Protein backbone atom coordinates (compact mmCIF):
# COMPACT_ATOMS: atom_id res chain seq x y z
CA UNK A 1 0.00 0.00 0.00
CA UNK A 2 2.99 2.37 -0.01
CA UNK A 3 3.64 4.61 -2.98
CA UNK A 4 6.91 3.49 -4.41
CA UNK A 5 7.57 0.57 -2.24
CA UNK A 6 10.56 0.61 0.04
CA UNK A 7 9.18 2.15 3.23
CA UNK A 8 6.10 0.93 5.10
CA UNK A 9 4.18 4.20 5.25
CA UNK A 10 1.07 3.02 7.03
CA UNK A 11 -0.30 5.35 9.68
CA UNK A 12 -2.86 4.55 12.36
CA UNK A 13 -5.57 6.75 13.82
CA UNK A 14 -6.91 4.62 16.61
CA UNK A 15 -8.29 1.49 14.90
CA UNK A 16 -8.15 2.95 11.44
CA UNK A 17 -5.25 2.16 9.17
CA UNK A 18 -4.29 4.71 6.54
CA UNK A 19 -2.03 3.65 3.67
CA UNK A 20 0.15 6.71 4.11
CA UNK A 21 0.44 9.68 6.46
CA UNK A 22 -0.23 12.58 4.07
CA UNK A 23 -3.71 14.05 4.49
CA UNK A 24 -5.37 17.25 3.41
CA UNK A 25 -6.14 19.84 6.09
CA UNK A 26 -9.72 20.78 6.74
CA UNK A 27 -10.97 23.74 4.73
CA UNK A 28 -8.04 23.69 2.33
CA UNK A 29 -9.07 21.12 -0.26
CA UNK A 30 -12.55 22.22 -1.26
CA UNK A 31 -15.12 19.46 -1.67
CA UNK A 32 -12.64 17.11 -3.24
CA UNK A 33 -13.58 17.58 -6.86
CA UNK A 34 -11.39 20.66 -7.25
CA UNK A 35 -8.31 18.88 -5.97
CA UNK A 36 -9.13 15.75 -7.95
CA UNK A 37 -8.28 17.74 -11.10
CA UNK A 38 -4.66 17.64 -9.97
CA UNK A 39 -4.17 14.65 -7.72
CA UNK A 40 -5.71 11.23 -7.23
CA UNK A 41 -7.67 11.53 -3.99
CA UNK A 42 -7.55 7.80 -3.34
CA UNK A 43 -3.77 8.08 -3.02
CA UNK A 44 -4.14 10.45 -0.07
CA UNK A 45 -3.77 9.04 3.43
CA UNK A 46 -7.16 10.67 3.86
CA UNK A 47 -9.12 13.65 2.69
CA UNK A 48 -10.45 16.05 5.33
CA UNK A 49 -13.56 18.04 4.50
CA UNK A 50 -13.97 21.67 5.50
CA UNK A 51 -15.79 21.93 8.80
CA UNK A 52 -19.40 20.97 8.20
CA UNK A 53 -22.03 22.98 10.06
CA UNK A 54 -25.65 22.26 10.82
CA UNK A 55 -27.21 25.05 8.74
CA UNK A 56 -25.94 26.46 5.46
CA UNK A 57 -23.45 29.28 6.11
CA UNK A 58 -22.52 32.12 3.78
CA UNK A 59 -19.32 32.77 5.73
CA UNK A 60 -17.66 36.12 6.25
CA UNK A 61 -17.57 39.15 3.98
CA UNK A 62 -14.63 39.72 1.65
CA UNK A 63 -11.74 40.47 1.65
CA UNK A 64 -11.27 37.11 3.34
CA UNK A 65 -7.60 36.71 2.76
CA UNK A 66 -4.37 38.62 3.25
CA UNK A 67 -0.93 37.35 2.45
CA UNK A 68 1.63 37.81 5.23
CA UNK A 69 5.34 36.89 5.24
CA UNK A 70 5.45 33.13 4.63
CA UNK A 71 1.85 32.98 5.77
CA UNK A 72 -1.76 33.57 4.96
CA UNK A 73 -4.54 35.12 7.00
CA UNK A 74 -8.01 33.88 6.23
CA UNK A 75 -11.47 34.60 7.51
CA UNK A 76 -13.64 32.30 5.41
CA UNK A 77 -15.91 31.71 8.37
CA UNK A 78 -16.91 28.11 7.61
CA UNK A 79 -18.85 28.84 4.44
CA UNK A 80 -20.74 25.75 3.37
CA UNK A 81 -24.14 24.37 2.44
CA UNK A 82 -24.84 22.66 5.79
CA UNK A 83 -24.88 19.03 6.80
CA UNK A 84 -27.95 17.97 4.80
CA UNK A 85 -26.49 19.08 1.50
CA UNK A 86 -23.15 17.58 2.54
CA UNK A 87 -24.76 14.19 3.18
CA UNK A 88 -26.76 14.31 -0.01
CA UNK A 89 -24.15 15.52 -2.45
CA UNK A 90 -20.62 15.73 -1.20
CA UNK A 91 -20.08 12.70 1.00
CA UNK A 92 -21.63 10.27 -1.52
CA UNK A 93 -19.33 11.66 -4.23
CA UNK A 94 -16.28 11.12 -2.00
CA UNK A 95 -17.44 7.67 -0.92
CA UNK A 96 -18.30 6.75 -4.48
CA UNK A 97 -14.79 7.59 -5.56
CA UNK A 98 -13.25 5.53 -2.79
CA UNK A 99 -11.79 8.49 -0.91
CA UNK A 100 -11.03 7.91 2.77
CA UNK A 101 -12.82 10.88 4.31
CA UNK A 102 -12.29 12.63 7.61
CA UNK A 103 -15.39 14.69 8.22
CA UNK A 104 -14.63 17.86 10.13
CA UNK A 105 -17.52 19.30 12.10
CA UNK A 106 -18.07 22.78 13.51
CA UNK A 107 -20.73 23.81 15.99
CA UNK A 108 -21.59 26.63 18.35
CA UNK A 109 -22.58 24.49 21.33
CA UNK A 110 -22.08 21.04 22.76
CA UNK A 111 -25.58 20.14 21.62
CA UNK A 112 -24.90 21.24 18.06
CA UNK A 113 -21.70 19.22 17.86
CA UNK A 114 -23.58 16.20 19.21
CA UNK A 115 -26.35 16.68 16.66
CA UNK A 116 -23.80 16.83 13.85
CA UNK A 117 -22.19 13.61 15.06
CA UNK A 118 -25.57 11.87 15.28
CA UNK A 119 -26.43 12.99 11.78
CA UNK A 120 -23.16 11.43 10.57
CA UNK A 121 -23.54 8.23 12.59
CA UNK A 122 -25.29 6.23 9.90
CA UNK A 123 -23.69 7.83 6.89
CA UNK A 124 -21.45 5.67 4.71
CA UNK A 125 -17.93 6.72 3.93
CA UNK A 126 -16.89 8.42 7.17
CA UNK A 127 -13.35 7.30 8.02
CA UNK A 128 -13.06 9.54 11.07
CA UNK A 129 -14.64 12.62 12.59
CA UNK A 130 -12.55 15.67 13.36
CA UNK A 131 -13.94 18.11 15.89
CA UNK A 132 -13.01 21.68 15.02
CA UNK A 133 -12.66 23.17 18.48
CA UNK A 134 -11.71 26.60 17.12
CA UNK A 135 -15.39 27.51 17.02
CA UNK A 136 -16.86 30.12 19.36
CA UNK A 137 -19.00 28.68 22.13
CA UNK A 138 -22.20 30.71 21.95
CA UNK A 139 -23.01 29.63 25.49
CA UNK A 140 -19.73 31.11 26.80
CA UNK A 141 -19.77 34.57 25.19
CA UNK A 142 -18.04 33.28 22.08
CA UNK A 143 -14.95 31.89 23.80
CA UNK A 144 -13.37 29.29 21.54
CA UNK A 145 -13.81 25.71 22.74
CA UNK A 146 -10.12 25.19 21.97
CA UNK A 147 -9.20 27.78 24.61
CA UNK A 148 -11.03 26.05 27.42
CA UNK A 149 -10.15 22.47 28.35
CA UNK A 150 -13.40 21.65 30.07
CA UNK A 151 -15.79 22.74 27.36
CA UNK A 152 -13.50 21.13 24.76
CA UNK A 153 -13.76 17.88 26.71
CA UNK A 154 -17.53 18.19 26.85
CA UNK A 155 -17.75 18.58 23.09
CA UNK A 156 -15.44 15.63 22.50
CA UNK A 157 -17.40 13.44 24.92
CA UNK A 158 -20.68 14.33 23.25
CA UNK A 159 -19.32 13.58 19.78
CA UNK A 160 -17.65 10.38 20.96
CA UNK A 161 -20.95 9.29 22.51
CA UNK A 162 -22.87 9.80 19.30
CA UNK A 163 -20.32 8.15 17.02
CA UNK A 164 -19.90 4.48 16.07
CA UNK A 165 -17.16 2.78 18.09
CA UNK A 166 -15.07 2.03 14.99
CA UNK A 167 -14.98 5.63 13.78
CA UNK A 168 -12.20 7.55 15.54
CA UNK A 169 -12.93 10.99 16.95
CA UNK A 170 -10.12 13.48 16.47
CA UNK A 171 -9.96 16.68 18.51
CA UNK A 172 -8.41 19.61 16.69
CA UNK A 173 -6.47 22.05 18.86
CA UNK A 174 -5.23 25.60 18.43
CA UNK A 175 -1.81 26.92 19.49
CA UNK A 176 -2.90 30.23 20.99
CA UNK A 177 -3.65 28.97 24.45
CA UNK A 178 -1.53 29.24 27.57
CA UNK A 179 -1.13 25.46 27.88
CA UNK A 180 -1.85 23.27 24.88
CA UNK A 181 -0.98 20.11 26.82
CA UNK A 182 -3.73 20.79 29.34
CA UNK A 183 -6.31 21.16 26.57
CA UNK A 184 -5.01 18.03 24.86
CA UNK A 185 -5.26 16.06 28.07
CA UNK A 186 -8.83 17.21 28.63
CA UNK A 187 -9.80 16.12 25.12
CA UNK A 188 -8.24 12.69 25.59
CA UNK A 189 -9.99 12.37 28.95
CA UNK A 190 -13.18 13.32 27.13
CA UNK A 191 -12.70 10.37 24.78
CA UNK A 192 -10.68 11.68 21.83
CA UNK A 193 -8.98 8.83 19.96
CA UNK A 194 -6.53 11.17 18.29
CA UNK A 195 -5.58 14.83 18.24
CA UNK A 196 -4.84 17.13 15.37
CA UNK A 197 -2.88 20.34 15.65
CA UNK A 198 -2.54 23.11 14.86
CA UNK A 199 -5.52 25.07 13.80
CA UNK A 200 -4.73 28.65 12.87
CA UNK A 201 -3.76 31.10 15.62
CA UNK A 202 -5.59 34.41 15.44
CA UNK A 203 -3.74 37.12 13.56
CA UNK A 204 -4.37 40.36 11.83
CA UNK A 205 -3.02 42.61 9.12
CA UNK A 206 -3.69 46.27 8.41
CA UNK A 207 -3.88 47.58 4.87
CA UNK A 208 -1.68 50.64 5.25
CA UNK A 209 -3.14 52.25 2.14
CA UNK A 210 -6.77 51.91 3.14
CA UNK A 211 -5.68 52.30 6.80
CA UNK A 212 -8.15 49.55 7.69
CA UNK A 213 -7.87 45.90 8.67
CA UNK A 214 -6.97 43.95 5.54
CA UNK A 215 -9.71 41.41 6.25
CA UNK A 216 -13.32 42.53 6.34
CA UNK A 217 -13.73 40.44 9.48
CA UNK A 218 -10.85 42.25 11.21
CA UNK A 219 -8.86 39.29 12.39
CA UNK A 220 -8.35 35.89 10.79
CA UNK A 221 -6.51 32.61 11.16
CA UNK A 222 -2.80 32.54 10.36
CA UNK A 223 -1.55 29.53 8.39
CA UNK A 224 1.41 28.52 6.28
CA UNK A 225 5.13 28.06 6.95
CA UNK A 226 5.17 31.11 9.24
CA UNK A 227 3.36 29.08 11.90
CA UNK A 228 5.28 25.82 11.48
CA UNK A 229 7.49 26.49 14.52
CA UNK A 230 4.33 26.82 16.61
CA UNK A 231 2.99 23.55 15.19
CA UNK A 232 6.22 21.66 15.84
CA UNK A 233 6.30 22.96 19.39
CA UNK A 234 2.67 21.94 20.06
CA UNK A 235 3.16 18.48 18.57
CA UNK A 236 6.37 18.04 20.56
CA UNK A 237 4.83 19.11 23.87
CA UNK A 238 1.69 17.01 23.47
CA UNK A 239 3.60 13.94 22.28
CA UNK A 240 5.94 14.27 25.27
CA UNK A 241 3.01 14.39 27.66
CA UNK A 242 0.74 11.85 25.92
CA UNK A 243 3.03 9.55 23.94
CA UNK A 244 0.31 7.00 23.27
CA UNK A 245 -2.10 9.36 21.54
CA UNK A 246 -1.95 9.56 17.73
CA UNK A 247 -1.34 13.09 16.52
CA UNK A 248 -2.06 14.54 13.09
CA UNK A 249 0.46 17.33 12.68
CA UNK A 250 -0.25 20.32 10.49
CA UNK A 251 0.78 23.92 10.08
CA UNK A 252 2.98 25.11 7.26
CA UNK A 253 3.93 21.80 5.68
CA UNK A 254 5.24 22.56 2.18
CA UNK A 255 7.78 19.78 1.65
CA UNK A 256 8.70 16.29 2.74
CA UNK A 257 11.26 17.80 5.10
CA UNK A 258 8.55 19.81 6.80
CA UNK A 259 6.40 16.68 7.13
CA UNK A 260 9.35 14.79 8.61
CA UNK A 261 9.91 17.60 11.09
CA UNK A 262 6.40 17.12 12.49
CA UNK A 263 6.77 13.34 12.44
CA UNK A 264 10.06 13.43 14.35
CA UNK A 265 8.34 15.75 16.85
CA UNK A 266 5.63 13.15 17.39
CA UNK A 267 3.01 13.28 14.65
CA UNK A 268 1.99 9.95 13.12
CA UNK A 269 0.32 11.66 10.17
CA UNK A 270 0.61 15.07 8.59
CA UNK A 271 -1.99 17.30 6.98
CA UNK A 272 -1.35 19.78 4.20
CA UNK A 273 -3.36 22.99 4.02
CA UNK A 274 -2.07 26.29 2.71
CA UNK A 275 0.53 24.49 0.61
CA UNK A 276 -2.31 23.26 -1.60
CA UNK A 277 -3.04 26.84 -2.60
CA UNK A 278 0.57 27.26 -3.61
CA UNK A 279 0.96 23.88 -5.26
CA UNK A 280 -2.14 21.83 -6.01
CA UNK A 281 0.10 18.80 -6.47
CA UNK A 282 1.59 19.23 -2.99
CA UNK A 283 0.22 16.04 -1.41
CA UNK A 284 1.70 13.45 -3.75
CA UNK A 285 4.93 15.42 -3.97
CA UNK A 286 5.26 15.67 -0.19
CA UNK A 287 4.56 11.95 0.16
CA UNK A 288 7.25 11.14 -2.39
CA UNK A 289 9.76 13.44 -0.71
CA UNK A 290 8.93 12.04 2.70
CA UNK A 291 9.39 8.48 1.55
CA UNK A 292 12.77 9.34 0.06
CA UNK A 293 13.90 11.07 3.23
CA UNK A 294 12.84 8.12 5.38
CA UNK A 295 14.57 5.74 3.02
CA UNK A 296 17.79 7.80 3.01
CA UNK A 297 17.79 7.70 6.80
CA UNK A 298 17.44 3.95 6.83
CA UNK A 299 13.86 3.66 8.03
CA UNK A 300 11.82 0.64 6.95
CA UNK A 301 8.71 1.91 8.63
CA UNK A 302 7.30 5.38 9.08
CA UNK A 303 6.21 4.36 12.56
CA UNK A 304 9.84 4.12 13.68
CA UNK A 305 10.38 7.81 12.95
CA UNK A 306 7.37 9.04 14.92
CA UNK A 307 8.59 11.11 17.85
CA UNK A 308 12.18 10.03 17.31
CA UNK A 309 13.58 13.48 18.09
CA UNK A 310 12.50 12.86 21.71
CA UNK A 311 15.04 10.08 22.28
CA UNK A 312 17.47 10.90 25.07
CA UNK A 313 20.54 12.84 23.96
CA UNK A 314 23.74 10.89 24.21
CA UNK A 315 27.03 12.68 24.28
CA UNK A 316 27.78 11.02 20.95
CA UNK A 317 24.68 12.39 19.30
CA UNK A 318 25.60 15.84 20.39
CA UNK A 319 28.82 15.54 18.50
CA UNK A 320 27.14 14.08 15.50
CA UNK A 321 24.54 16.79 15.29
CA UNK A 322 27.14 19.48 15.75
CA UNK A 323 28.97 18.62 12.56
Amino acid at each position, binding site marked *: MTTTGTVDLRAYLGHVELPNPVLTAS*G*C*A*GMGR*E*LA*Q*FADLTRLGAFAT*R*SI*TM*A*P*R*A*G*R*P*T*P*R*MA*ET*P*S*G*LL*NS*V*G*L*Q*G*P*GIEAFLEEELPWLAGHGVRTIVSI*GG*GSVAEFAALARRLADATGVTAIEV*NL*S*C*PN*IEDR*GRLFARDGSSAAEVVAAVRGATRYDVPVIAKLAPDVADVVAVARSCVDGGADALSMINTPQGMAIDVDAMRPAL*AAGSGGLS*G*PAVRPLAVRCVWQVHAALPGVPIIGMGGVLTGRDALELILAGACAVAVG*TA*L*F*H*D*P*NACPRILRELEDLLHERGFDRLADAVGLAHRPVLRNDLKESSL
Partner: protein
Amino acid sequence: MAVTPVQVTGTVLTIRRVDAYHALTVVAPAVADRFRPGHFVTVSTGGPATATLTRRAFAVHDVKPDYGGTVEFVFTVRGAGTSWLAARRARDTLDLVGPLGRPFPLPRDPCRCVLVGSEYGSASLFALADVLQGRGCRIDFVLGAASADRVFGALRARRIGETTTLTTEDGSLGMRGQVADVLAGVIADTRADVVYACGPRDMLRAVTAVAIELDIPAQVSVEEAMACGTGLCMTCVLPVIGDDGVTRMVRACAEGPVFRGERVRFEDVGTIPFDALGAPRGLGGMG
Protein backbone atom coordinates in the same frame (compact mmCIF):
# COMPACT_ATOMS: atom_id res chain seq x y z
CA MET B 1 -17.72 22.42 -19.78
CA ALA B 2 -14.70 22.98 -17.55
CA VAL B 3 -11.32 22.02 -18.93
CA THR B 4 -8.90 20.33 -16.59
CA PRO B 5 -6.13 22.68 -15.55
CA VAL B 6 -2.52 21.54 -15.33
CA GLN B 7 0.50 22.64 -13.37
CA VAL B 8 3.62 23.07 -15.48
CA THR B 9 7.08 24.55 -15.24
CA GLY B 10 7.42 26.74 -18.29
CA THR B 11 10.40 28.57 -19.71
CA VAL B 12 10.10 32.31 -20.14
CA LEU B 13 10.43 33.11 -23.82
CA THR B 14 10.24 36.89 -23.68
CA ILE B 15 9.38 39.62 -21.26
CA ARG B 16 8.94 43.14 -22.54
CA ARG B 17 7.47 46.50 -21.62
CA VAL B 18 4.26 47.52 -23.36
CA ASP B 19 3.51 51.06 -22.29
CA ALA B 20 2.78 50.92 -18.56
CA TYR B 21 2.68 47.12 -18.55
CA HIS B 22 4.90 44.07 -18.78
CA ALA B 23 4.04 41.29 -21.23
CA LEU B 24 5.46 37.90 -20.35
CA THR B 25 5.42 34.95 -22.74
CA VAL B 26 6.08 31.50 -21.37
CA VAL B 27 6.33 28.14 -23.10
CA ALA B 28 3.51 25.99 -21.77
CA PRO B 29 1.99 23.73 -24.44
CA ALA B 30 -0.37 21.93 -22.09
CA VAL B 31 -1.88 25.22 -20.96
CA ALA B 32 -2.00 26.68 -24.47
CA ASP B 33 -3.75 23.55 -25.77
CA ARG B 34 -6.57 23.84 -23.30
CA PHE B 35 -7.02 27.58 -23.48
CA ARG B 36 -10.29 29.29 -24.27
CA PRO B 37 -10.81 33.07 -24.21
CA GLY B 38 -11.48 34.34 -20.70
CA HIS B 39 -9.30 31.77 -18.98
CA PHE B 40 -6.68 32.89 -16.51
CA VAL B 41 -3.48 31.35 -15.18
CA THR B 42 -1.77 31.60 -11.81
CA VAL B 43 1.94 31.79 -11.21
CA SER B 44 4.07 31.12 -8.20
CA THR B 45 6.32 34.07 -7.35
CA GLY B 46 9.49 34.54 -5.32
CA GLY B 47 11.31 31.37 -6.33
CA PRO B 48 12.17 28.50 -4.00
CA ALA B 49 11.90 29.43 -0.31
CA THR B 50 9.46 32.19 -1.23
CA ALA B 51 7.74 34.27 1.43
CA THR B 52 4.88 35.10 -0.97
CA LEU B 53 2.92 31.90 -0.91
CA THR B 54 -0.28 32.73 -2.68
CA ARG B 55 -0.24 32.38 -6.43
CA ARG B 56 -0.83 35.46 -8.57
CA ALA B 57 -3.65 35.37 -11.13
CA PHE B 58 -3.38 36.82 -14.63
CA ALA B 59 -5.79 36.75 -17.53
CA VAL B 60 -4.32 35.03 -20.57
CA HIS B 61 -3.68 37.58 -23.29
CA ASP B 62 -2.59 35.32 -26.10
CA VAL B 63 -1.63 31.77 -26.87
CA LYS B 64 0.59 30.98 -29.84
CA PRO B 65 1.70 27.71 -31.40
CA ASP B 66 5.46 28.51 -31.17
CA TYR B 67 7.59 25.97 -29.29
CA GLY B 68 4.60 23.67 -28.98
CA GLY B 69 2.47 26.37 -27.43
CA THR B 70 3.08 29.61 -25.58
CA VAL B 71 0.97 31.62 -23.17
CA GLU B 72 1.27 35.38 -22.77
CA PHE B 73 -0.12 37.57 -20.04
CA VAL B 74 0.12 41.29 -19.41
CA PHE B 75 0.60 42.72 -15.97
CA THR B 76 1.14 45.82 -13.94
CA VAL B 77 3.56 45.91 -11.01
CA ARG B 78 1.67 46.18 -7.76
CA GLY B 79 3.45 44.46 -4.83
CA ALA B 80 6.07 41.83 -4.08
CA GLY B 81 4.82 39.18 -6.48
CA THR B 82 4.52 41.33 -9.58
CA SER B 83 7.85 43.04 -8.80
CA TRP B 84 9.48 39.63 -8.78
CA LEU B 85 7.74 38.72 -12.04
CA ALA B 86 8.90 41.93 -13.70
CA ALA B 87 12.49 40.93 -12.90
CA ARG B 88 12.23 37.60 -14.80
CA ARG B 89 14.34 37.18 -17.90
CA ALA B 90 14.21 34.96 -20.97
CA ARG B 91 15.17 31.36 -20.08
CA ASP B 92 14.08 31.67 -16.43
CA THR B 93 11.43 29.15 -15.48
CA LEU B 94 7.96 29.86 -14.16
CA ASP B 95 5.56 27.62 -12.25
CA LEU B 96 2.21 28.01 -13.99
CA VAL B 97 -1.24 26.59 -13.28
CA GLY B 98 -3.96 26.88 -15.88
CA PRO B 99 -6.07 27.37 -17.72
CA LEU B 100 -8.43 28.30 -14.89
CA GLY B 101 -11.95 29.59 -14.52
CA ARG B 102 -15.05 29.78 -16.61
CA PRO B 103 -14.21 31.27 -20.03
CA PHE B 104 -16.37 33.72 -21.95
CA PRO B 105 -19.48 31.96 -23.26
CA LEU B 106 -19.78 32.24 -27.03
CA PRO B 107 -22.95 33.02 -28.97
CA ARG B 108 -24.33 30.17 -31.03
CA ASP B 109 -25.07 32.37 -34.05
CA PRO B 110 -23.20 35.32 -35.51
CA CYS B 111 -24.07 38.54 -33.69
CA ARG B 112 -22.83 42.03 -32.89
CA CYS B 113 -20.49 42.18 -29.92
CA VAL B 114 -19.07 45.17 -28.05
CA LEU B 115 -15.87 44.30 -26.17
CA VAL B 116 -15.13 46.65 -23.31
CA GLY B 117 -11.79 46.71 -21.49
CA SER B 118 -10.27 48.91 -18.87
CA GLU B 119 -6.55 49.06 -18.01
CA TYR B 120 -4.95 45.59 -18.36
CA GLY B 121 -8.47 44.16 -18.49
CA SER B 122 -8.37 44.73 -22.25
CA ALA B 123 -5.75 42.00 -22.54
CA SER B 124 -8.21 39.13 -22.34
CA LEU B 125 -10.48 40.55 -25.08
CA PHE B 126 -8.32 39.92 -28.14
CA ALA B 127 -8.35 36.15 -28.08
CA LEU B 128 -12.10 36.45 -27.58
CA ALA B 129 -12.37 38.79 -30.56
CA ASP B 130 -10.51 36.30 -32.76
CA VAL B 131 -12.89 33.49 -31.87
CA LEU B 132 -15.97 35.67 -32.26
CA GLN B 133 -14.80 36.86 -35.66
CA GLY B 134 -14.19 33.26 -36.63
CA ARG B 135 -17.87 32.71 -35.92
CA GLY B 136 -18.84 35.63 -38.11
CA CYS B 137 -19.54 38.13 -35.36
CA ARG B 138 -19.06 41.87 -35.70
CA ILE B 139 -16.66 43.29 -33.11
CA ASP B 140 -16.50 46.82 -31.74
CA PHE B 141 -14.09 47.86 -29.01
CA VAL B 142 -14.31 50.30 -26.18
CA LEU B 143 -11.02 50.56 -24.32
CA GLY B 144 -10.11 52.90 -21.53
CA ALA B 145 -7.75 53.67 -18.69
CA ALA B 146 -6.62 56.43 -16.40
CA SER B 147 -4.11 57.74 -18.93
CA ALA B 148 -2.87 57.03 -22.46
CA ASP B 149 0.05 54.79 -21.41
CA ARG B 150 -2.36 52.56 -19.49
CA VAL B 151 -4.74 51.91 -22.40
CA PHE B 152 -3.79 48.41 -23.48
CA GLY B 153 -4.10 47.12 -27.04
CA ALA B 154 -5.50 50.15 -28.86
CA LEU B 155 -3.61 49.34 -32.08
CA ARG B 156 -4.68 45.74 -32.16
CA ALA B 157 -8.26 46.78 -31.44
CA ARG B 158 -8.17 49.19 -34.37
CA ARG B 159 -6.99 46.35 -36.62
CA ILE B 160 -9.66 43.89 -35.52
CA GLY B 161 -12.67 45.98 -34.60
CA GLU B 162 -15.16 47.65 -36.88
CA THR B 163 -14.83 50.63 -34.58
CA THR B 164 -12.67 51.33 -31.57
CA THR B 165 -13.57 53.97 -29.02
CA LEU B 166 -10.93 55.00 -26.52
CA THR B 167 -11.36 56.82 -23.23
CA THR B 168 -8.92 58.17 -20.67
CA GLU B 169 -9.69 59.82 -17.38
CA ASP B 170 -7.12 62.53 -17.97
CA GLY B 171 -8.12 63.02 -21.58
CA SER B 172 -4.66 62.13 -22.85
CA LEU B 173 -6.11 59.74 -25.42
CA GLY B 174 -9.59 59.46 -26.94
CA MET B 175 -12.57 60.82 -25.03
CA ARG B 176 -12.13 62.13 -21.51
CA GLY B 177 -13.98 59.88 -19.10
CA GLN B 178 -14.56 56.23 -18.46
CA VAL B 179 -15.56 53.41 -20.78
CA ALA B 180 -19.08 53.22 -19.40
CA ASP B 181 -19.68 56.86 -20.28
CA VAL B 182 -19.42 56.14 -24.00
CA LEU B 183 -20.80 52.62 -23.99
CA ALA B 184 -24.48 53.44 -24.49
CA GLY B 185 -23.60 55.39 -27.61
CA VAL B 186 -21.48 52.55 -29.01
CA ILE B 187 -24.18 49.98 -28.30
CA ALA B 188 -26.76 52.15 -30.01
CA ASP B 189 -24.55 52.90 -33.02
CA THR B 190 -23.59 49.27 -33.55
CA ARG B 191 -26.96 47.86 -32.54
CA ALA B 192 -25.00 45.41 -30.38
CA ASP B 193 -26.50 42.12 -29.19
CA VAL B 194 -24.08 41.51 -26.34
CA VAL B 195 -21.36 43.19 -24.28
CA TYR B 196 -18.22 41.48 -23.04
CA ALA B 197 -16.25 43.34 -20.39
CA CYS B 198 -13.14 42.96 -18.31
CA GLY B 199 -11.74 45.47 -15.84
CA PRO B 200 -12.03 46.78 -12.29
CA ARG B 201 -15.15 46.15 -10.30
CA ASP B 202 -16.57 49.65 -10.53
CA MET B 203 -16.19 49.62 -14.29
CA LEU B 204 -17.96 46.26 -14.57
CA ARG B 205 -20.77 47.55 -12.45
CA ALA B 206 -21.18 50.62 -14.64
CA VAL B 207 -20.97 48.54 -17.84
CA THR B 208 -23.58 46.15 -16.50
CA ALA B 209 -25.86 49.05 -15.64
CA VAL B 210 -25.65 50.33 -19.22
CA ALA B 211 -26.32 46.85 -20.64
CA ILE B 212 -29.32 46.38 -18.37
CA GLU B 213 -30.60 49.80 -19.36
CA LEU B 214 -30.33 48.90 -23.03
CA ASP B 215 -31.62 45.41 -22.37
CA ILE B 216 -28.77 43.36 -23.77
CA PRO B 217 -26.73 40.75 -21.90
CA ALA B 218 -23.29 41.58 -20.45
CA GLN B 219 -20.65 38.95 -19.81
CA VAL B 220 -18.23 40.39 -17.29
CA SER B 221 -14.94 39.01 -16.05
CA VAL B 222 -14.39 39.93 -12.40
CA GLU B 223 -11.17 40.30 -10.45
CA GLU B 224 -11.36 39.33 -6.78
CA ALA B 225 -8.45 38.69 -4.41
CA MET B 226 -7.62 34.99 -4.71
CA ALA B 227 -5.50 32.81 -2.46
CA CYS B 228 -5.59 29.69 -4.65
CA GLY B 229 -7.33 30.28 -7.98
CA THR B 230 -8.37 26.63 -8.10
CA GLY B 231 -11.54 26.59 -6.04
CA LEU B 232 -10.02 25.24 -2.82
CA CYS B 233 -9.90 28.14 -0.38
CA MET B 234 -13.23 30.01 -0.61
CA THR B 235 -11.62 33.43 -0.26
CA CYS B 236 -12.61 34.87 -3.65
CA VAL B 237 -16.38 34.81 -3.25
CA LEU B 238 -18.93 37.41 -4.28
CA PRO B 239 -22.73 37.47 -4.11
CA VAL B 240 -24.25 36.15 -7.33
CA ILE B 241 -27.90 35.40 -8.04
CA GLY B 242 -28.49 31.86 -9.26
CA ASP B 243 -30.95 30.53 -11.84
CA ASP B 244 -33.30 29.83 -8.92
CA GLY B 245 -33.22 33.47 -7.86
CA VAL B 246 -31.24 32.66 -4.72
CA THR B 247 -28.12 34.71 -3.94
CA ARG B 248 -25.09 32.61 -3.09
CA MET B 249 -21.52 33.51 -2.20
CA VAL B 250 -19.82 31.94 -5.21
CA ARG B 251 -16.16 31.61 -6.07
CA ALA B 252 -14.83 34.04 -8.63
CA CYS B 253 -12.10 31.53 -9.57
CA ALA B 254 -14.27 28.47 -10.12
CA GLU B 255 -17.80 29.63 -10.95
CA GLY B 256 -16.25 32.77 -12.56
CA PRO B 257 -14.35 34.87 -13.35
CA VAL B 258 -16.90 35.40 -16.13
CA PHE B 259 -20.46 35.97 -14.95
CA ARG B 260 -23.63 37.38 -16.45
CA GLY B 261 -23.34 40.98 -15.29
CA GLU B 262 -26.91 41.31 -14.06
CA ARG B 263 -26.47 38.29 -11.82
CA VAL B 264 -23.59 39.85 -9.87
CA ARG B 265 -24.71 41.94 -6.90
CA PHE B 266 -21.96 44.52 -7.35
CA GLU B 267 -23.41 46.86 -4.72
CA ASP B 268 -23.11 44.11 -2.15
CA VAL B 269 -19.59 42.87 -2.89
CA GLY B 270 -17.67 43.02 0.37
CA THR B 271 -20.76 42.14 2.39
CA ILE B 272 -22.90 39.10 2.99
CA PRO B 273 -26.33 40.26 1.74
CA PHE B 274 -28.95 39.46 4.36
CA ASP B 275 -30.90 37.39 1.84
CA ALA B 276 -27.90 35.29 0.71
CA LEU B 277 -28.07 31.56 1.34
CA GLY B 278 -26.64 30.94 4.80
CA ALA B 279 -26.39 34.62 5.75
CA PRO B 280 -25.96 35.10 9.49
CA ARG B 281 -29.15 35.64 11.42
CA GLY B 282 -28.73 38.05 14.29
CA LEU B 283 -25.35 38.44 15.84
CA GLY B 284 -23.99 34.95 16.43
CA GLY B 285 -20.86 34.52 14.34
CA MET B 286 -18.77 31.39 14.15
CA GLY B 287 -15.31 30.21 13.18
